[in-house]
């Protein structure tokens, strides 16, 4: 059905030179425009304008970086590096300080004093990682500014914490709503006094075997009758209890 046309090989028809002229005109115009308009540094380092990198690099810095702070505030810096806020950059609390490092007299960085600021990190939130120090702002010395008790550059509890919940907020919250609510932390953990001062160096003890839980939960154990019982001999003896049951919230698992 499709019939391919065939060409004359004789004299070139009038249409051809005319069309060629028009197309040549367009092509020449495009080539001229192209050479004139391509930006100078385009293609120097890749398919982009190399000069763009320079203008991005020229962007003004708002945060000076803590190395700058150390040049003048070395003592505070050393104190901070030795304490619990060692990983915290100065500008994390004091805000962008490039204008201050450029002109220390005229521009002063902020000094946040309100509780809300500290609570951004330290208010209890279940999504925060376990072990991160979190407080309940209502029960934790409600009206007082944090810095009256804690040195923000090297925060430690002003006195040894009275309750475990001061640091282990999440665990105490979960235990509080579980069937283990009535148990003291010390029922299962022995916490030396030094743990309150050097929490990472001196650690509390943990139960090590099934018989510890069995003291309450084994058949025949001397404990209140409503406590659920299992046979230590037949109830999955290949596991220790906390591989399946989370002791701070046993009914969850």
């Amino acid at each position: 059905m499709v019939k391919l046309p065939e060409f004359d090989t004789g004299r070139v028809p009038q249409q051809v030179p005319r069309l060629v002229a028009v197309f040549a005109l367009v092509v020449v115009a495009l080539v001229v425009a192209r050479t004139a308009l391509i930006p100078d540094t385009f293609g120097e380092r890749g398919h982009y304008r190399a000069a763009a990198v320079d203008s991005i690099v020229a962007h003004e810095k708002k945060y000076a970086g803590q190395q700058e702070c150390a040049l003048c505030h070395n003592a505070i810096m050393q104190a901070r590096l030795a304490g619990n806020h060692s990983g915290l950059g100065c500008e994390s609390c004091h805000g962008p300080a490039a204008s201050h490092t450029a002109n220390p007299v005229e521009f002063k960085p902020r000094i946040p004093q309100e509780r809300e600021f500290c609570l951004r990190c330290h208010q209890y939130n279940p999504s925060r990682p376990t072990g991160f120090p979190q407080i309940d702002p209502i029960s934790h010395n409600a009206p007082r500014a944090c810095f009256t008790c804690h040195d923000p550059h090297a925060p430690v509890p002003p006195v040894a914490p009275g309750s475990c919940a001061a640091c282990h907020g999440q665990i105490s919250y979960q235990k509080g709503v579980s069937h283990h609510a009535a148990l003291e932390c010390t029922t299962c953990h022995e916490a030396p006094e030094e743990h309150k001062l050097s929490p990472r160096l001196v650690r509390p003890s943990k139960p090590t075997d099934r018989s510890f839980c069995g003291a309450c939960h084994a058949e025949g154990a001397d404990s209140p009758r409503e406590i659920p019982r299992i046979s230590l001999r037949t109830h999955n003896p290949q596991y220790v209890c906390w591989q399946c049951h989370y002791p701070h919230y046993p009914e969850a698992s």
Partner: protein
Amino acid sequence: MISKEREPTPQTDALEKLQEKLKDVDRREFLKACSLLAPVLLGVIRVPILEAQEVASSEYDPTEHFYAMGIDVSKCIGCGQCVQACKTENDVPFEPEFFNTWVERYVIRADGEVDVDSPNGGLDGFPPPGGEGEIRRTFFVPKLCNHCANPPCVQVCPVGATFITEDGVILVDESYCIGCRYCIQACPYGARWMHPETHVAAKCTFCYHRVVDGLVPACVEVCPTGARIFGEVEQRVTPLARFMRFNDVQVLKPHLNTKPKAYYANLDGEVR
């Protein structure tokens, strides 16, 4: 646990460099003396580079660097300092539709339902999670441009207005972008946005203007827990190299073969 021991964060690392620099004075003079005696030594100990450090950024050579970011999900506390710092440092509009970096919260219920939210990108922190049902696990995930090694945004840009630099950073040439938004469509991570005033595509630059001066990006500078680790991928002794050695790292949406350079540790499978 946040950390069992104090890990070198980029911040402390930079500080050590500063202290090193002060010691450098003697060493530099010693090396200068060497250079008079033994020109052969020059090539080996690379004095020219040591001397070039004085001139700092003007001599920055992008081919000697290759950047990436590590993110430890288990360290993020969802404070939103990174979002705040990023918007300040990079003049990102403070309206809630424009983010170079943001923080998402995942709440996975006991029945497997997943609730994700990111109120104002996490800029103001997170209220306690709402919703029904018992929580099985919950965590925060910082997000940002992945600076892919195989970037779909760069592939689709019709004019070459977005590009990957020699040091591995994806940038936008805001005086060349035509504003077609194809790159925004092509980004699987939602990391790009249209600037409401300049009408060009905008995105995280890894704070390129800071990085070439030896600083870390603003989000890394202010992160209180060291959840973000910025650095060189190809050099052996850097905080990022350490992070990558001691963690199982993953990237987001690996099946798309974008080869991201935002490496996540302790990433949950529900994160998309």
